């Protein structure tokens, strides 16, 4: 190893500055010296730097992530693999995961978002599952920020450009705008795949002498140190890091997907993993780590896109559309035959060893020799200091008596419906193919997307949710509400939750106040997951979402998957027939803290988020689910951003057919703006035929769910007596053009 001088590439001398520029602290460097018993080579320094980065090692979050419930009767694979896997019966299972691609998307929105989709797709098909649905959760700065339209257009085009080309439908998602993301947008991509339960593949390297095969695109200099970039904060000059953003090639991804799935039908693969963050280094060392093996690579054999690449660059490149697989010895020709068919490279670049070392050679010289465990299990873990933010008490103070109730509540409703956070997002999702694979039963725009499971009577419901303002004001309650809303969205279409994947987007973990937010959010999510009995099966943490020391709001986004045992029972949010009775399940309280109304109309981000009783939440969801199972409901819609009034308006105007009016009578003894716009959770608006009302009442009584008949569907006006009335067509027009009008 000491004879690196004889090889043909530059080797900078290791200096304190060089170590620091690799994101390693002096203490971490001392730990490396102790593990190796010598100075690392330059290449080894690069390897440690990416493997010990926050992005790959989860060094600040691991301690807390352990608190989340990850087990359940249907869980076949929990966190720690490329994706979680859940049993859906009929011999089938689904794999799903969500991942962030925030920093690259801010630097280069089209490619950043596109490669985010590419990465999550590979995480799914590496498990042996065919990707059948994607969603995304997007957060941008204020719509009036000069960069926002550019970032939004680029991100949306990138997601569409990649996902459409690979032939995986984007069936849902969420888009939010808030000043806190002006300098650091969030792009979280979710994909779900379907597989035979008996054919789950994992990222494992075992069986001494088994070949390590590199498949897919050639390796270039793109994305070197992407994982390190994702583990740092932004500043103006970091935008210079453009070369660390990778470029996507969805056509190659499509070929890779088909070739891998075809190969998985044969008996060749021992283990397989995507070369994602930290590329060849992380895939090979993680696979060996899981298998308790060693791995030996000859970097001279790696297919290269450009000449003169050093071992350092080859090991750290994050070129896209590459996979690493360990095959059974003797099946090399079969593997090559299938990849040849799809015009892709498949090259044996190494083998599994028993010495538990990660070794790499280049032109005959050994350039890396590091114990596998040093890169995986022994990576640093920190329990960083956490401190309650000094301003949170002040933030939570909200004197409602000082908040003047608007005189014209109809005008207020129009402002809310036309605001970018609530307005129709068709401009976004019409750029995504949501029909391909011909499974889409509920397309984007509803509480949850629904796809059918071909060959069964079942359906799958999918949703992504987050409310960062709640988490900013009270991260514990925000964590609970995020999980509860996701489950409620599934209940509204008639699906029972199977599992969660999450993206936890936060500021710098080195800031104690951010660490406190993180710990509180996890605590909240854990309590909600336990109460609603939903396991967390996969996820990702994205720290350092801050620009020039200004953190984003703590933003956990939750992707939840649910099962509809009988797809034919599926329900959509929109009113269907004039004459149907409108019923509110749950209770509206005077809770305006943290609401969209308070922010938009009064410019206030204050108060405590609405309180939630998880027992009531579960009862409301069960009531909705039971009623859907019994075929009682014609529609069901969750109440969230903008409260009851916005939710009712969406029931009238959100459907594919002509808008329907509604006439609501209210007798609640709370102030008008709270009645209309309070965001009390655990509420669902349903509609049904009058003849079924008694059955619903019986069910609600049995489950102890408060329910009120509040009105009737019909007419051309949207009426909430005695507070407001408007032509429903006018509401539709305001809502439909709210986003596009602001993008011009």
């Amino acid at each position, binding site marked *: 190893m000491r004879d690196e001088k004889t090889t043909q590439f530059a080797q900078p001398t290791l200096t304190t500055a060089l170590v620091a520029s690799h994101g390693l602290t002096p203490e971490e460097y001392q730990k490396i010296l102790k593990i190796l018993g010598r100075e690392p080579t330059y290449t080894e320094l690069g390897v440690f730097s990416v493997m010990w980065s926050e992005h790959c090692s989860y060094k600040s979050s691991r301690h807390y992530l352990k608190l989340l419930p990850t087990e359940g009767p249907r869980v076949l694979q929990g966190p720690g693999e490329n994706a979680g896997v859940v049993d859906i019966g009929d011999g089938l299972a689904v794999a799903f995961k969500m991942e962030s691609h925030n920093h690259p998307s801010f630097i280069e929105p089209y490619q950043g978002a596109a490669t985010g989709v590419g990465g999550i797709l590979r995480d799914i098909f590496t498990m042996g599952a065919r990707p059948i649905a994607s969603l995304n959760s997007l957060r941008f700065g204020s719509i009036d920020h000069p960069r926002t339209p550019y970032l939004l257009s680029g991100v949306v085009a990138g997601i569409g450009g990649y996902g459409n080309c690979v*032939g995986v439908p984007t069936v849902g998602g969420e888009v939010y705008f808030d000043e806190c993301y002006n300098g650091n947008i969030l792009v979280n991509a979710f994909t779900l795949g379907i597989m035979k339960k008996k054919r789950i593949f994992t990222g494992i390297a075992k069986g001494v002498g088994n070949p390590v095969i590199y498949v897919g695109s050639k390796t270039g200099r793109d994305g070197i140190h992407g994982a390190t970039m994702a583990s740092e904060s932004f500043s103006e000059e970091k935008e210079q890091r453009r070369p660390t953003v990778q470029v996507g090639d969805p*056509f190659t991804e499509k*070929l890779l997907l088909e070739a891998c799935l075809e190969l998985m039908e044969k008996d060749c693969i021992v283990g397989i993993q995507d070369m994602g963050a930290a590329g060849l280094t992380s895939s090979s060392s993680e696979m060996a780590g899981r298998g308790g093996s060693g791995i030996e690579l000859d970097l001279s054999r790696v297919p290269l896109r450009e000449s003169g690449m050093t071992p350092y660059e080859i090991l750290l490149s994050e070129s896209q559309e590459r996979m690493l697989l360990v095959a059974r010895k003797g099946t090399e020709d079969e593997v090559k035959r299938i990849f040849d068919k799809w015009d892709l490279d498949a090259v044996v670049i190494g083998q599994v060893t028993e010495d538990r070392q990660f070794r790499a050679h280049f032109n005959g010289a050994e350039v890396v020799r590091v114990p596998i465990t040093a890169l995986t299990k022994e990576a640093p873990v920190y329990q960083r200091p956490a401190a309650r933010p000094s301003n949170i008490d002040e933030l939570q103070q909200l004197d409602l008596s000082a908040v003047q109730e608007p005189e014209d509540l109809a005008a207020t409703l129009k402002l809310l419906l036309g605001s970018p956070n609530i307005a129709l997002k068709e401009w976004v999702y019409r750029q*995504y193919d*949501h029909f391909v694979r011909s499974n889409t*039963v509920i397309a984007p725009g509803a509480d949850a997307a629904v796809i059918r499971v071909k060959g069964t009577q079942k359906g799958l419901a999918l949703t992504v949710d987050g409310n960062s303002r709640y988490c900013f004001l009270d991260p514990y309650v925000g964590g609970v509400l995020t999980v509860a809303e996701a489950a409620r969205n599934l209940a509204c279409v008639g699906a029972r939750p199977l599992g969660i994947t999450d993206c936890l987007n936060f500021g710098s973990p080195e800031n104690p106040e951010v660490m406190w937010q993180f710990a509180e959010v996890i605590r909240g999510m854990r309590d909600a997951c336990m109460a609603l009995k939903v396991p967390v099966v996969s996820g990702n943490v994205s720290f350092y979402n801050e620009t020039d020391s200004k953190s984003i709001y703590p933003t956990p986004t939750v992707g939840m998957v649910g099962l509809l045992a009988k797809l034919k029972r599926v329900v959509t949010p929109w009113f269907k027939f004039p004459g149907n009775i409108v019923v509110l399940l749950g209770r509206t309280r005077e809770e305006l803290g943290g609401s969209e109304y308070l922010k938009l109309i009064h410019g206030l981000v204050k108060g405590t988020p609405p309180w939630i009783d998880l027992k009531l939440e579960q009862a409301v969801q069960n009531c909705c689910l039971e009623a859907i199972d019994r075929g009682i409901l014609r529609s069901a819609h969750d109440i969230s951003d903008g409260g009851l009034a916005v939710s009712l308006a969406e029931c009238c105007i959100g459907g594919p057919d002509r808008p329907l009016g509604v006439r609501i009578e209210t007798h609640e003894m709370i102030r008008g703006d709270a009645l209309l716009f309070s965001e009390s959770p655990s509420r669902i608006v349903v509609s049904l035929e009058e003849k079924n009302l008694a059955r619903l009442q019986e069910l609600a009584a049995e489950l102890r769910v408060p329910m009120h008949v509040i009105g009737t569907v019909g007419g051309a006006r949207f009426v909430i007596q005695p507070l407001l009335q408007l032509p429903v067509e006018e509401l539709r027009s305001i809502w439909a053009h709210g986003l596009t009008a602001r993008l011009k």
Partner: protein
Amino acid sequence: MRWGVITFPGSCDEQDVYDSLKREMGQKVKLLWHKDELTGHFDCLILPGGFSYGDYLRCGVMARFSPIMRGVVKFAQNGGLVLGICNGFQILCESGLLPGALVRNAGLQFVCRQVFLRVEESDTPFTRETKKGQLLKLPVKHGEGCYYADPSTLEQLRKNRQIILRYADAKGKPSPAANPNGSLDNIAGICNETRNVFGMMPHPEDACSQFLGSEDGLKIFSSIVASRNDRETRHA
């Protein structure tokens, strides 16, 4: 009857077409690989949607050079039924089996939504189970679906009644607002002069089940079945 569905590298909808024909209609379907020569007997060949060769060059221009296309052209010239959907339509235009071209959408963005189509001609093997003027509800999803042809070609298409489907509004009017991509004359689907090759941008395979919001796609496929049965009878 026997269907062949061709998979090009980058095809996305071959399985959807296969499933619709097999699961919803109980048809005999075979997936064909683009590198193979066309062998065996088929009654109808389908070129499915997707992004052949990533659409990195002009859409469909690479796929026309796939080995199987020699056989497809011959099959069409001998009167065999060929249906091109979306990217398949683009490939048929690039291969010279259909006139005109599909260019970038007028709005410059990919567009995915349900549209209404007015059946302009029902005397083709692909629309014979529909009525002239009937509306079909099918999804479109494409970035390059704007149909273009020079004025004389367009005149020929009109004269020979080769314009089969046009984008229309819910009332059946082919208005500019109903046109998702800026196609000339709201053209969504055309056939060749001998009426055995048909290209359409909308996706019938995504509209073959009540769960998917429309079953109108079945009308295209069942028309093909009916015309083939008819031919059998005539030949008998």
